[in-house]
């Protein structure tokens, strides 16, 4: 239960629970601790490092593609992976891999962000497009199938597109920015649909080991709020808008439900 006491904004009667020196900047959703910016950066990065090491996600010398959409998760992922790779000598060759589904007013803008990320983080970028791979953009597909089940089509195409891009880059692994909130939604989604097969697979941190390119999710235990706060405080460049076809997606219901649950925690 959340504490009811009001903390006078100017008085700062509480200090960061980690360093006990600085004023707290946020309340961590993961632990409900009040933490200052500096300590937040440290725990955020260290926890992700521990997830990477503890789950043996990578081996030295591997080429790794970061699925980058220009959105909050993938931008922070690229930044943190870059940083940790340097700091802890993972010995990885990192790349940015982007998928252009051909969604006007959504993807074209976010790709500009990834192009900036390429420069900002010094990571080579490869963009694969549905049009080139399949001869169809999502806009063209939606014109034919209507506004239902768009994510189903797009998701299948995207996975293939990422595999093809990864093969082009000759990478050993693909990482994506799926966070704890995303996975919680997926679990709920699969329960609601009775998709037992997916339910059994959807929380694995690494998937596709028997396929062309294994994929892993270093942000599996990272809360979305913390990713956004990290990006905000660090002033990371990312693009945010909802895909124009997403309002019809079933996932939206799962998301709303989980957010409501979190609020009454």
């Amino acid at each position, binding site marked *: 239960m959340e504490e009811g006491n009001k903390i*006078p904004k100017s008085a700062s009667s509480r200090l960061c629970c980690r360093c006990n020196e600085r004023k707290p900047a946020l*309340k961590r959703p993961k632990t409900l601790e009040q933490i200052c910016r500096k300590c937040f950066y440290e725990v955020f990065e260290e926890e992700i490092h521990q997830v990477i090491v503890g789950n043996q996600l990578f081996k030295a010398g591997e080429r790794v593609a970061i699925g980058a959409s220009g*959105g*909050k998760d993938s931008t922070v992922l690229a930044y943190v992976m870059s940083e940790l790779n340097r700091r802890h000598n993972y010995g990885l060759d990192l790349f940015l891999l982007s998928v252009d589904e051909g969604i006007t007013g959504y993807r074209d803008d976010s790709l500009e962000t990834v192009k900036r990320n390429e420069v900002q983080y010094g990571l080579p970028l490869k963009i694969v497009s549905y049009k080139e791979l399949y001869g169809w953009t999502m806009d063209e597909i939606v014109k034919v199938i209507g506004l239902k089940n768009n994510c189903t089509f797009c998701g299948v195409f995207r996975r293939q597109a990422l595999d093809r891009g990864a093969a082009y880059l000759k990478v050993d692994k693909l990482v994506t920015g799926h966070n704890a909130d995303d996975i919680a939604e997926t679990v709920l989604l699969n329960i609601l649909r009775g998709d037992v097969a997916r339910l059994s697979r959807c929380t694995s941190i690494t998937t596709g080991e028997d396929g062309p390119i294994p994929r892993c999710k270093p942000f599996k235990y990272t809360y979305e*709020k913390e990713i956004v*706060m990290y990006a905000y405080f660090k002033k990371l460049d*990312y693009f945010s808008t909802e895909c124009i076809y997403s309002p019809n997606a079933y996932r939206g219901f799962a998301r709303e439900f989980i957010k409501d649950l979190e609020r009454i925690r």
Partner: protein
Amino acid sequence: MSPFFCLCSTGSDVACCYWICCSGGLELLCDSVKMHNVNVDLENGLEQLTMKDLLAWARTNLIKERPEMFMKGDTVRPGVLVLVNDCDWELSGQLDTTLQEKDVVVFISTLHGG
């Protein structure tokens, strides 16, 4: 471009307010204008503006469309983060947070693809 909008307001005389809205995010709800100067008047009997008052005011005066994307009931829609002077409003009592002159309030939506 950053994915948030920011509001700085006072409860009394001098208004020193601005919103910074993001691309494709919450700014769309206020005529796509990034920054606003706003002056919020206190209701009779109130000494200080709280976040609760500010949100109610914003819903009426600033949000031009789809208020349900910004607010749910008295508070922000779940998934919208709120910072007052760059501090998480969960530290200062959320809706009960009192605001002072030249305070900066930032709303960040997390409800989009990553």
